[in-house]
């Protein structure tokens, strides 16, 4: 942005001091307009809004509704309020990390509500279990963004004007500036200024400074002078604006994604598949603007699932690799094999399919007391620990007669049965699988229309099977075995092979590219705004009484800038030094050249 500016001859003739300084920069001070911009935080006692209209004096407290709104707007867009909102935002985000959240873990919320009925109820009413969608959290960030817009729009306009305005004119005295240099040269003032200006401007296609040359009328002890006003670092404010605007874009993209996205979860066992249709998912959530027609009708089969676990002692049974081998069938009938791994989702037809979980889905067959097959299905068991001690439920409502049967228990991939009869898993791979089941009978409650969790069996109203001592019967079933159920309920059979299942998440979010673009724009803008040096350099050249030319320079930077003096010295280094005997630029200029190339 720090573009080159052609010397404006007409403007250069304007005598120094005749150009009014509008607010912004004060050449003789050490502040620059950034200090002024932040000064917007000051509650300006401005009553013009209403005062002008009704003609009352500025001291009148009557500011009316418009004035009030104006005042509120000014407050909201002030830096001070933005700062408060930022602090509030940080504080408001914290409860969501301490209390369970519905969006992340609805089961934990239910458990919390059960454990703390009174407090939980109040917290729930105040939105503490949906912090990030709650009214108060949304209010804070929306106000923050309104404040941001109110701050950024005028700043963008101001920056636009600054980009087209000329660098501020040369101050009368250089002595107060943090960086200074002076030199005497045999060149004419015009030539000296030309040299220094070219140096400041830098490469033609990547200018460093924006340079403006003028002529200054004779003043006090000084004859007429040629001057340079140079400024660099416009990118600093540009970056700042880009950062804030990108945040706005980010918010809009995320919101759009929320409206347009859909996600579906499906559990698929080896050899089986699912089709990309709303009914085929176990759970399906969609944004408000989602239409089912946007689901591409591909289908997918899980061919095999591989897992690897560490067997060395230090990290025993830690997962090392999960791979799902699948075949995707496109809508046009073409088939192609694919892999899905953790960290490597399958991208197909605009959707991503993630491998989110895995486990065992043994085939369980139950015959009832009449010997009829009442249940024969693969039952997914949910792993509860690193060793895949997996819990599952079998609900058998369709018995020929008598009570319905419910089985609850654990699947242990590599089982060890201790002396006291308890069984546990010792490795996550199915080396020696064992099914441990408890048996219940009664009304499973599946017929009353209330939705039930398929992975839970409400045993409160059921009768457990017990042995002579009153202890619950634990059936141990190995692959291929058939075991009699107690109380003459029938038999249970575990299939010879133990199929695996994978839990797949399918997700489609058309806003991702925009979210990423705006995030990267914000990052780039931020880096520019924090790391671009903002400097001004002024140079004045005039003929001294002895026929040589005096060149003076001063530099000003925003904040603490260790490179400022170097910048001024570099600019001056192009001037050929005047030798004592007045022999011309030879030696001095060679030295100066050396110095430049070193930089």
């Amino acid at each position, binding site marked *: 942005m720090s573009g080159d500016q052609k010397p404006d001859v007409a403007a250069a003739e304007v005598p120094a001091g005749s150009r009014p300084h509008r607010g912004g920069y004060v050449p003789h001070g050490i502040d620059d307009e950034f200090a002024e911009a932040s000064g917007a935080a000051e509650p300006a006692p401005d009553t013009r809004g209403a005062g002008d209209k009704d003609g009352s004096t500025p001291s009148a407290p009557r500011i009316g509704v418009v004035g009030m709104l104006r005042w509120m707007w000014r407050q909201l867009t002030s830096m001070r309020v*933005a700062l408060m909102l930022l602090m509030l935002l940080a504080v408001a985000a914290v409860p969501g990390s301490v209390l369970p959240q519905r969006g992340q873990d609805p089961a934990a919320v239910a458990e919390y509500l059960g454990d703390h009925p009174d407090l939980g109820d109040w917290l729930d009413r105040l939105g503490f279990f949906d912090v990030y969608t709650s009214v108060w959290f949304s209010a804070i960030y929306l106000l923050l963004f309104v404040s941001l817009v109110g701050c950024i729009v005028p700043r963008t306009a101001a920056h636009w004007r600054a980009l087209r305005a000329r660098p501020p004119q040369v101050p009368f005295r250089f002595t107060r500036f943090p960086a200074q240099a002076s030199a005497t040269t045999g060149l004419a003032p015009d030539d000296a200024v030309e040299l220094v200006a070219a140096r400041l401007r830098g490469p033609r296609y990547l200018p460093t400074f924006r340079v403006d040359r003028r002529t200054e009328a004779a003043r006090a002890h000084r004859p007429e002078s040629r001057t340079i006003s140079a400024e660099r670092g416009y990118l600093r404010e540009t970056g700042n604006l880009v950062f804030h605007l990108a945040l706005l874009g980010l918010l809009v993209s995320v919101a759009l994604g929320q409206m347009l996205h859909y996600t579906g979860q499906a559990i698929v066992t080896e050899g089986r598949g699912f089709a990309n249709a709303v009914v085929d998912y176990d759970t399906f959530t969609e944004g408000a603007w989602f239409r089912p027609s946007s689901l591409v009708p591909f289908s997918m089969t899980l061919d095999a699932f591989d897992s690897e676990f*560490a067997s060395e002692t230090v990290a025993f049974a830690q997962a*090392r690799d999960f791979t799902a081998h699948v075949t995707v069938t496109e809508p046009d009938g073409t088939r192609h094999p694919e892999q899905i791994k*953790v960290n490597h989702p399958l991208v197909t037809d605009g959707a991503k399919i993630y491998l989110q979980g895995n486990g065992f889905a043994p085939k369980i067959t139950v015959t009832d007391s009449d010997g009829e097959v009442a249940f024969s299905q693969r039952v997914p068991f949910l792993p509860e620990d690193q060793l895949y001690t997996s819990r599952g439920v079998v609900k058998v409502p369709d018995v020929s007669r008598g009570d319905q049967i419910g089985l609850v228990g654990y699947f242990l991939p590599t089982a060890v049965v201790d002396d006291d009869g308890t069984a546990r898993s010792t490795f996550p791979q199915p080396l020696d699988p064992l099914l441990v089941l408890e048996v219940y009978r009664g009304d499973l409650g599946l017929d009353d229309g209330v939705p039930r969790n398929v992975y839970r069996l409400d045993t409160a109203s059921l009768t457990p099977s017990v042995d002579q001592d009153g202890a619950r019967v634990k059936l141990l079933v190995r692959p291929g075995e058939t075991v009699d159920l107690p109380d003459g309920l029938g038999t249970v059979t575990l299939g010879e092979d133990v199929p695996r299942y994978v839990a797949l998440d399918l997700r489609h979010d058309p806003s991702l590219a925009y979210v990423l673009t705006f995030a990267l724009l914000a990052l780039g803008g931020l880096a520019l705004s*924090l790391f671009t040096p903002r400097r001004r350099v002024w140079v004045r050249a005039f003929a001294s009484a002895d026929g040589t030319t005096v060149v003076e320079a001063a530099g000003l930077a925003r904040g603490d800038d260790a490179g400022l003096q170097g910048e001024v010295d570099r600019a001056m280094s192009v001037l050929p030094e005047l030798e004592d005997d007045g022999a011309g630029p030879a030696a001095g200029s060679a030295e100066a050249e050396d110095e430049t190339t070193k930089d």
Partner: protein
Amino acid sequence: MEMANLSVLLVWAAATALAIAMIAFAVDLARLSGARVAERDAAREKVTVAAGGGAPEAEPAPGPAAAYGPGNGTAAGGVSRKGAGIGMALSWLAAAMLLAAIVLRGLASGRTPWANMYEFVLVGTFVAVAVFVGVCTVREARFLGAFVAGLGATFLVLAQNVFFVAATGLQPALQNYWLVIHVGVAITATGIFTVAFVSSVLQLLRDARDEGTPWLAAWRWLDQTPSPTALEALSFRLNSVGFVLWTFTLIGGAIWAEDAWGRYWGWDPKEVWSFVVWVVYAAYLHARTTRGWSGRRAAWFVVVGYACVLFNFTGVNLVINGKHSYSGLT
């Protein structure tokens, strides 16, 4: 296993070096302030003699931290800066040993050596010490030494005693090149925030002492630090680098989460706290340029921000459980 053991030995050696460096730096600060007092006494005596006694208004004002001017090996009346020299040498040594320990740890486990809390602390401490010695090559910042070295030694001992886990492979969720980028950048940011935090704390103390806070009256060494303005400038430079890196940490983490967890942002506890850290440091950057909030108040944001960084690392990993629980501790 041999390399893993050597790595542990090097960590202990680095912790020892940093502990000694801290003492050396502290001795240096004490000597400087002692010399300063002696100098002032001498000056006062001279004034008293010249004025023929009873000229309290001629007492020289407490010097504005000229002792740490650039480039002077000796300061404040020719005090030897041997302590600072020893501290610097040990800091360099500690950084080198930590680097070696980290490399060996990576070789022993056959992967990027920043995948659990223990390794995170090692690398974070290395970055903090490296940033400190790096800053010292550019400008005079040895007054930070006692605190950076002290924090570093504490972190290393804590890591070795509390967070230590054996070097081993990675679970599938961590097997991604983003581990190198996302976590690496997060650690670097943490290391930089550490040094900036020290600078801001010194700024607050120095500022309070200059204002005559009673309990700081005895802390004469504070006069050896640069002015609060200079400390704030140093802190700001470091924090702005840290903030950009932290922004990148959030973006990189979101990209990785999109691949690994199926969403780029899900308000997981670690995400919440990374967001809180980001917002606090953003507030700091705004406070700096807000009238009435610059200076001391802005420095408090750095303190709060760094506390959030530490909690994000320890509390979120150990107390609150989320998807980021990769401490390797059970």
